[in-house]
């Protein structure tokens, strides 16, 4: 997997009402990488994710996956949204199977893969429950399982834990971290949560708002053996404060 964004700009509207949302975004990402885009609201991070997903088209610049230009959405890029992520009338298993049915897989194969990915996210025993019978964290795990079941080259997560309570958010971060470690997934995460970006990603791009642009890129080589320990360690806290200062400064500089 090789994702390349080259001088991507995105403008919404025309004429006087036109608004530049993303300005000259360039980045690359490779197989197995965990990349985070960190920014406050107005930094265009969700728009950037939608461009990668193929749900929007860039005004200028190019996006490509393994050398092929991104022209529209496809199951090679699995996406998980913050809200309304599951089909409320389908059970957990049916949600996971949904993408496989769209692909036209055989029934046996669908059943097998659905069970496998529910097991991966630890929800095999909730297979027959409806989304409303699942907690917020469980719902997001099902949504991740559904994206994974399509066996995408790249997993796109748009603030996937943003609507969850702090406690659950932390355990979901651990879950995602372990999932990434054990599967070798390529993950592009969008977040405004500094801890989340620094804890999970190997590389963090910090986006400035209005227009959205990458102002700083961090490569992290923290010891991620124990996320809970890492969270309270001094080097992590120092880094966290630095990034928080950077973000605060960016917001203050706004016209």
């Amino acid at each position, binding site marked *: 997997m090789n994702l390349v964004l080259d001088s991507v700009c995105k403008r919404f509207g025309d004429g006087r009402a036109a608004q530049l949302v993303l300005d000259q975004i360039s980045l690359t990402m490779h197989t197995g990488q965990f990349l985070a885009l960190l920014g406050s609201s107005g930094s265009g991070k969700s728009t950037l994710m939608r461009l990668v*997903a*193929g*749900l929007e088209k860039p005004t200028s610049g190019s996006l490509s996956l393994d050398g092929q230009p991104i022209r*529209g*959405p*496809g*199951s090679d*890029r*699995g*996406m998980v*949204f*913050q*809200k*309304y*992520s599951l*089909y*409320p*009338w389908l059970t957990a298993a049916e949600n996971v199977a*949904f*993408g496989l049915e*769209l*692909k036209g897989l055989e029934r046996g194969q669908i059943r097998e893969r659905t069970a496998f990915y529910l097991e991966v996210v630890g929800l095999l025993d909730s297979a027959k429950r*409806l989304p*409303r019978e699942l907690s917020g964290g469980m719902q997001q795990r099902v*949504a991740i399982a*559904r*994206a994974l079941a*399509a066996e995408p080259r790249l997993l*796109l997560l748009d603030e996937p834990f943003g609507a969850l309570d702090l406690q659950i958010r932390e355990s979901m971060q651990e879950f995602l971290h372990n999932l990434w470690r054990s599967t070798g997934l390529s993950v592009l995460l969008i977040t405004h949560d500094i801890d989340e970006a620094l804890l999970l990603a190997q590389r963090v791009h910090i986006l400035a708002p209005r227009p959205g642009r990458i102002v700083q890129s961090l490569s992290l080589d923290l010891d991620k053996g124990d996320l809970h320990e890492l969270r309270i360690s001094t080097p992590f806290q120092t880094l966290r404060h630095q990034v928080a200062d950077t973000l605060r400064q960016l917001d203050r500089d706004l016209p």
Partner: protein
Amino acid sequence: MAQPDSMATQRLRRLLLHPWSLGVAGIAVLLGLWTLVAGLGVVDPLFLPTPAAVVAAGQEEAASGDLWRDISASVLRVLGGFGLSALVALPLGIAMGTNTTFCRLLEPLLALLRYMPAPAFIPLLIIYFGLGELPKVLLIFIGTLFFNTLMIMDAVKFVPRELLETTRTLGGKKRDLLLRVITPYIAPQVLDAFRINMAAAWNLVIVAELVAAESGLGKHITLAQRFLRTDQIFLGLIVIGLIGLLIDLGFRMLMRRSCAWAT
């Protein structure tokens, strides 16, 4: 071991706390008042028949078969007109909810037509189609089409964008969005819209039959008026109400059965 006494008390309490018990009590009070006022003889029975007289009128009509003929005539008209309206409203509402051009083209038109009272179309319908079944079915069709369409359109517009986009990232095409996401998502709201608008259809059939008809519950009432049979008028009104209630309950049951996820 529980005392038999307390068992009975418990059962009574459960009965009283049942969600329907207050509603039943309301109806019972009205029936009681009616019996009382009619029984006291303070009102001329010509104006207010006793409940017993209405029941007797019902038995008489049921035995002669007239009641069933009137009921089936009215119900068939409603089914025809409303069925046609639902059949047109579903694709039209979905098209308007998913396509901006369609919506901008038709929404002002429907908003205008919606404010024209359907009974005001009766003279025109009679001029065009005479006094047969067609104008009655068309009246119900006109009277419910715009409401059905606009309510379906609204339901489609409220399908979360995320759900549609998730489907596209899973490889879903337009057809999949329509049949596998939008349709199941709006099903409960559509059933609810139908349930509400069915009341309008039921009103309109009676109006149409009051104006001109050979049979039907509306016709039953106008005939009874001609012969000053208030017992028959009461019977007609009560039967109309009961059938409406049955239709409502039927829709609610269908909703619970088919859209359990939304209730």
